[in-house]
Structures are given as C-alpha cells and as structure tokens.
C-alpha cells in the first residue's frame, strides 16, 4: 500500500483526486495547500507518492519538488498542473518528478497516471 499526499491549493482539485484514487493501492496520509505546508507534512508523514500542483502561493510546486527529492530521492511525484508547455514538464522531470498530468484531467487519466507511477 502506497502512502499518498495530495498537494494543491484548490480544495476542489484535492477532492477530485481523493475521490478518484484506488484505495486498494493508495492510502491518503496528508493533503497540503502550498509548497511550504507540503514540506512540513512530508517530513511528518513521509508519503512515498505525491500529487503536486505547480502554481501555488508561498512556495511553488517546482521548488517544493526540488526540496522533497533532496530529502528523499525515491519519492514518486506526479505533477498535476495546468501549465501545459513542454519546458515546464521537462523542468519538473529534471527536478525529480516521475510523471506529469495536465489539467483538465479525467478521473480515468488520474487513476492511470498514479498506477503507472508505482509500477516497477
């Protein structure tokens, strides 16, 4: 069972992700609304899978990814963002993200992306 943390400043998006993920494969351990809060909760709960928005107040997702990966390079991070340009996707992956799902997304796309993330 993978420990999941959802990071997004939108309550609606957090709820959508919560409703969609497979509870047989993932256990939600934390949610966060900013990069700063995500770091705090990461250190407490140590999820091994994270969904990460990029455009957030206080600390954006790219900076947060960099800091989390520096702490634990094995964490798998799925970026879930409306920033659809290739350069952002490349930058996220270069910082250590494992996947990128562009908003708007269907629940099927989210489930598939999360499942792919944890395949060995």
């Amino acid at each position, binding site marked *: 069972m993978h420990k999941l943390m959802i990071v997004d400043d939108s*309550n*609606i998006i957090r709820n959508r992700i919560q*409703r969609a993920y497979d509870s047989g494969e993932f256990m939600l351990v934390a949610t966060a609304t900013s990069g700063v809060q995500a770091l705090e909760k990461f250190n407490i709960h140590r999820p091994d899978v994270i969904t990460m928005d990029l455009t957030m107040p206080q600390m954006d997702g790219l900076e947060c990814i960099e800091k989390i990966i520096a702490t634990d390079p094995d964490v798998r991070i799925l970026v879930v963002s*409306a920033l659809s*340009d290739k*350069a*952002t996707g490349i930058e996220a992956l270069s910082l250590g993200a494992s996947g990128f799902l*562009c908003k*708007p997304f269907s629940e099927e796309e989210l489930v598939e992306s999360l499942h792919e993330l944890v395949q060995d």
Partner: protein
Amino acid sequence: MKEQKLQIFLNIISNYFDQFGGEELVADTPYLLENKQPKVHDYTGVIGISGGQKGVVYFSATHKLLSSLLDSMGETDKSDDNYIDLAGEVANTIAGNARTEFGSEFHISVPFVFKGAPKSIVLPNDERSFIIPITWHSQVGEIVVCLQD
C-alpha cells in the same frame, strides 16, 4: 492583442468543458470592450500575466454555471468557498493551458477571485479586452483576455 490569439483561448475553454461530456459549450462571437467597466458575473477568477506577454486573463461566471460545474465534478460542497475556488481554478487552467501556444515565458499569477463587482481595478484602464461569452447548460459566463501585443 491580435484576434487570431483568441482562437487559442476558445480552444482551451472548449477543451475544459469537454472533460465533463454531455452538453457542449457554446461560445458566442467575441467582442472588444473598453476596460473602464469590466464585465463580470457573480464570481470572477483573475490571472495576471507577465513575462513575454503582459495583461490579464479572467473567467467570470454566474453562480448557476459554477453550480453546474461542481455537479459535473461530483462535488457536493456548494459553499461560497468552493465557488470562489472553482472560479480561480478555471481561470488558472485557461491561463496555464495557454502556455502550450505562448510558451513558458507566459508567466501566470496565482488566481485572485472576487464576488460581484471588483473593489479595485483589475484591468489596465486605458486598454480594451476581448470578451468571449460562453453558455453551458443554459448558464452564462465570460472569458476575458486583455494582453498587450
């Protein structure tokens, strides 16, 4: 802003509403409007644009349009906070998806959302904006784009 850039936003907003299936979004003919009196509905999510382009993109919708969107998302929480959240999230998605065409130098702000008429000016006073009226499930909204060439 040149009119051909409008098609970018038309495609983005159609794609956004397509995710819910069912009734298609209807976008009416865009028109130019002076910024002195911004066109808004019940909730408006505003994104500031900087970098390669400068300006504002916003999404404004009636309470009923947002309620229909929440229903389509399976969201049962119809609190004011969620309407505000959704207006911001739609605006964020529109502006963020525009980076496919405008590139990574199209910097977008965190959304700012307000209810009803804005308390302060959100658009450059001496500019004009393109207004894209939309209708979905018989409810109305607008995408407003004010970008300097």
